[in-house]
């Protein structure tokens, strides 16, 4: 009989609010992303100096992933095979614009290496992997809108083929002043069935 998989937990970050499994974890009156995410990281005790060097997309993905992986209470002495499958619409456009601005003036041409390194969306996966010591399968997809079916197929495939014991999936998008993260952890144990309808249902819970 085929194994069944479940969504063991999910985290959402949007509109200056952070939730874990549908329960509010942190909220702030700060509307601007950077001070909000800094305040959230401090409140959630994210003691990781490299966090402050990340671009906006990586901060968003990193914090959501960190909340989920800390909540999973993984044994720090064991290597965990947690694959990462993320997606968004804007790719790394926010940082691409910042970098473009730094090289557009030929009279003042000083491209920043620390901005340039974030001009790919999958760098945020690298940041999560470094912190949590994940040497696992990963991929980042760009879609016009949230694609639950595609995420589901990828996670199922990784788990069924035993390429991973858990899969961290979701949507993490940052463009201009708009940001949104919806990350969830798929594994054997859990209450919520892992299927496209449930993924869509959870994603929509904070779409207002």
């Amino acid at each position, binding site marked *: 009989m085929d194994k069944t998989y479940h969504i063991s937990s999910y985290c959402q970050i949007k509109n200056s609010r952070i939730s874990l499994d549908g329960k509010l974890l942190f909220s702030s009156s700060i509307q601007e992303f950077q001070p909000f995410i*800094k305040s959230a990281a401090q409140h959630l005790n994210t003691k990781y*100096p490299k966090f*402050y*060097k990340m671009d906006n997309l990586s901060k968003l993905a990193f914090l959501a992933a960190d909340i989920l992986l800390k909540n999973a209470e993984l044994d720090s002495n064991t290597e965990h095979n947690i694959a990462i499958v993320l997606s968004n619409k804007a790719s790394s456009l926010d940082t691409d614009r910042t970098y473009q601005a730094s090289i557009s003036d030929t009279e003042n041409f*000083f*491209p*920043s*290496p*620390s901005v340039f*390194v974030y001009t790919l969306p999958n760098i945020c996966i690298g940041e999560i992997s470094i912190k949590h010591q994940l040497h696992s399968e990963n991929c980042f997809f760009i879609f016009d809108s949230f694609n639950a079916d595609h995420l589901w197929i990828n996670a199922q495939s990784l788990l069924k083929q035993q390429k991973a014991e858990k899969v961290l999936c979701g949507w993490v998008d940052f463009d201009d002043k708009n940001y949104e993260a919806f990350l969830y952890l798929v594994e054997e144990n859990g209450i919520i069935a892992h299927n496209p309808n449930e993924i869509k249902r959870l994603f929509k819970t904070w779409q207002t």
Partner: protein
Amino acid sequence: MADLRQELKEKIIEQLNLEEFTVADIADDDALFGDGLGLDSIDALELIVMLDKDYGIQLTDPKEGKEIFKSIAILADYITDNRAK
């Protein structure tokens, strides 16, 4: 010289996003890389850009950077001797 050291500490904290440090936390002889401020290779590139942008110093030999970026005191001495801005 003291002013330049202070200026470098402020710039490094701001440009390298060292949120957990203040100027008072950085001693003139603290190691910038390794066990000191814990800067990484991207930070080293950022410091090379800073030297060019703010002081008109272009480093062409990467080995040179290894010596210059040992501490704030050494970096300030190098800038004083070589600055074009």
